[in-house]
């Protein structure tokens, strides 16, 4: 009987306790937000967040990379004659944080070479561009004859679709005359016997294309050889490789040439009427 009463008491107590729990309402998120926002600590933090006079220092400047990147800009060839016909490629390799599809345009200012100030470079595989969509933009131009010689700056600007800009530049040397960089004899001393072959090598560069060099000659008249020697870059007559800018010629020193050191003048001419001259000397012994 006692056990039964005890059990009843336990059941009644449990029921009462359960009733107490169920009568309590759960705290809602709204109430939790209000309680949290009402604490002094959070009031202060929210006040600081909404204040326009504090906290806006330099650390709040978002320095995330937004502008496109110009990897390189090149003028090909680096030197061009002011002839209005030699084709110059302006090539720019670009990237963008949003991908190449985010590039809205690449433009070059060609005013320094007498062309338009806002010329579009393309990446469509046409007009000198080798491959479409590779991020390498190209334009083709030429230097008009009225442009004076010297280094010309060509700025290139890349804009993306979000309005950001990168600016770079390259230089194009406008020059008319070819340059004879170096000239050498092999062997460096010649025997005046009319038999031993002497090879003359001249390294020549030309504004624009190498093919536009018309003539490279060596004047041996000081040795009594009146006809100029013509150097070639065709891979023949002592020239080891065609089209490499190394011009060569072979000749013999006649037996009548007295021993001594003779000045030799090498000349180069191109189709733009540009001229270059280089003086070297050949020691002759008997």
């Amino acid at each position, binding site marked *: 009987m006692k056990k039964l009463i005890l059990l009843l008491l336990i059941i009644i107590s449990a029921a009462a306790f359960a009733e107490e729990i169920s009568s309590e309402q759960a705290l*809602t998120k709204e109430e939790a937000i209000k309680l949290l926002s009402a604490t002094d600590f959070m009031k202060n933090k929210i006040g600081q967040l909404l204040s326009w006079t504090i906290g806006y220092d330099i650390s709040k400047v978002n320095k995330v990379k937004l502008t496109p990147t110009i990897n390189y800009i090149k003028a090909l060839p680096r030197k061009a004659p002011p002839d209005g016909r030699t084709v110059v490629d302006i090539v720019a390799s670009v990237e963008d944080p949003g991908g190449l599809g985010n590039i809205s345009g690449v433009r070059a200012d060609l005013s320094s070479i007498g062309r338009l100030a806002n010329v579009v470079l393309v990446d469509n595989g046409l007009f000198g561009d080798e491959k479409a969509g590779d991020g390498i933009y190209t334009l083709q131009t030429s230097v008009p004859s009225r442009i004076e010689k010297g280094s010309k700056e060509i700025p290139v600007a890349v804009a993306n679709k979000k309005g950001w800009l990168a600016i770079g530049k390259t230089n194009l040397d406008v020059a008319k005359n070819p340059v004879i960089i170096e000239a050498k004899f092999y062997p460096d001393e010649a025997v005046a016997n009319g038999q031993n072959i002497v090879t003359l090598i001249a390294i020549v560069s030309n504004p624009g294309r190498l093919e536009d060099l018309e003539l490279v000659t060596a004047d041996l008249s000081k040795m009594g050889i009146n006809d100029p020697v013509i150097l070639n870059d065709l891979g023949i007559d002592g020239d080891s490789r065609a089209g490499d800018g190394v011009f060569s010629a072979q000749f013999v020193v006649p037996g009548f040439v007295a021993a001594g050191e003779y000045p030799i003048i090498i000349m180069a001419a191109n189709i733009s009427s540009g001229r270059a001259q280089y003086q070297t000397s050949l020691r002759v012994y008997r």
Partner: protein
Amino acid sequence: MGQQRRDIVDGGRMSYLKIIILVLFVVCNLLFGIYSPANAELAELGIYPFSVEPGSRPLGLGGAFAAIDDVSSSFYNPGGMAWAKGIGFTVRNAGNLSVLQAYPLGNNASLGLGVITRKYSNMPITGGTANSDSTLIALSYGSKLTYIPFLYDQPFFKRLGFGITIKGLMSQTLQRTGQADISGTGIEADFGLLWKGGDYWNVGLCLQNGLSASGGELGSIKWNNGSKEGIPARLKLGAAIDLIGDYSQPIRNDEHGVLLAAELDFYRSSATNFRLGGEWSYLDQYYVRAGVMELGVNLGFGLRQEDWGVDLASYVEPAINERSLRLSVLYFPKEWIVVKNLDLPRPTISLEDVLQSISLQDNVSTYDDRINIAGKVKPGVAIYINGSNVAVNDDFTFNAVVPLRMQKNLVLVEARYEGESKVWKYKVLRKAKVTVKEEEQIKAEIKKAQTPEEKEALRKKEENIIEARQQLESLVTLGVIEIKPDEQFVMQAGITRGELATWIVRARELKLPLVNEDLYKDVPRNNPLAPYVKAVVEAGIMQPYPDGTFRPNAFISKQEGEFIFKKFKK
């Protein structure tokens, strides 16, 4: 390569500077050698009508003003006129007034005009008293040498201002007991250079009263009794540094700024004086100044609003050796820009004016993670936003998308033109956007409501929900509450103990502890909530149950919630 170029540029600057200092040094030595105050009617009384120091701000800085550009520059260093703009009216009393004006002509040049009256009465002299009354008119011009074609793009000359002030003493009267009254006139000139060597420091050099070397009509006061009085020349060499500031200064502070200035004054006939001054500013509106000059310590206060200002200075007036107060009222008209179209390829517009329009406003709140900034600039102006170059279209408009970080964002819009730049700052607050289920429901109910009373009751409910949503947004913005993108927040849902633990830890910025072992029966160490549970229990804000559980998924009762937030407050 860049370093090398910078070295070359810096080397060029130093060379120019050396030449200028050398030339000035030689000229000044010649001038100082010739000056001789033969007949010193005014100097005997300590009155130097050509050496007036108007303006309350310069006095607050102890007169160390040779390296600072200001509307008062024409009298402290006309080199500062290349940057000066505004009108200043200064008063000590009814007889001591000055009006100064620096009118920008565009092209980095300003024209200055000043009228100064000085009156000293009953000054004690042997056998009686003396009265002095003078009116000085000054015309000054300051510019940069960049108007010379081959100098226009030289970095050094873009930062160098030169100026000249011609001063005419229109009427100087002197009355002394027992002596005949005399009156005099004279002309003098100041020459100055101000070099803004860096973004936050300047050097100034000024030869004051440089015509005194002529020995003729110029550079002296000619009295009506036939005598002449020499005018002492002074060479001022000053430096100023913006030590603390919000953008380009060495110590960055968003609210406070500190300017320090020092000056050496060389005289031929007396000892060199040292002047020192400091200016503390708050929000670029309130200024407190202190300085030391020949006669003691000066104090000053200033107030600046958008285009006007007030300065007050307490100083010792040299002629009467009495502490005096000087009040200046300043006005800086925004529209004071005159543009000249010259053929020379040099700056033709003022930086103040280069940004013709911009869509961004200061103090903007947004929910977006980016902001579109559009505007228009004058031709030739480059725009940088947060240091990145913005594409300017052919019609000189620009339109850039600037990403925003959560909470506060400072957007710097910089206009660059011909080597100079100006920065505008915009404050943008990005808040978290939260969608609340109850708000959407109540909006739908308002639409369906039939009677005005019903609508009104629902609107009141809606206001409460909006208020709660705004509080929620602030908490989400601060990172206290995390809500997944596109998640709809249910305000009336219960909050679990685990969830509340995360809110409390983030709100109180409690450090998350390492959990190396299971915490409670129902909170194993790999439970994502374990660090939060451990942190709130260690902080004494929440407690586990006696049965060894924490019950992170159990809803919290109102009573329990109140108890927890009581602990939170402690």
